[in-house]
């Protein structure tokens, strides 16, 4: 019982690390974030989340 509990915990931990890594790998760059939320192009410095154009 104790061992299966520990195994479940280890499995959850590994899954969390894996999904976290996947999430990191598919993260948007600052430029992409600006492009998505502000409609700006190129790697310009911007504060995320940026304001959408009025």
């Amino acid at each position, binding site marked *: 019982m104790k061992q299966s509990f*520990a195994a479940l915990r280890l499995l959850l931990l590994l899954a*969390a690390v894996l999904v*976290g890594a996947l999430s*990191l790998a*598919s*993260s948007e760059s600052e430029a992409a974030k600006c492009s998505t939320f502000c409609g700006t192009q190129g790697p310009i410095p911007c504060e995320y*989340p940026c304001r959408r154009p009025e």
Partner: protein
Amino acid sequence: MRTARALSLLFLAALFLYAGLDKAFHYGGFVKALAGYVVVPAGLERHLALPVILTELLVGVGLLVRAWRSAAALVAAVLLSAFIVALAVNRQFAPGAECGCWFTVTLGKATGTHIFQNLILLGLAVTVWLEERRTAQVPLAPSLERSSS
């Protein structure tokens, strides 16, 4: 087994501390992201942001302190459940809204990955809470066990 327990605790504590600090350093962005959540009534985001950040930081610290661990794990589970519901509702009614989860490292938009990630973390928090509860229970003395049976 002890290693798995220690790793889980450290992982969860580091995650909550990082999430809290990340939101604190991007406070304006977090308030704006909260405003995009369907479950957050309009105007409440400004009052909700600080409690959420402080709770995350307290959970992170609490998981590292033995006396607070059980309560911290329970609060972590409640917090993660609330995040899951909020993200799921947004996915249904406001797809493509900002997540406000990891400003410095990961996705800007709320996706199914975030829900899946939170479900796993919820499972981890629940196992920590269950184990803490189990270890906190004082076993009955053998004489008491005999008399109660």
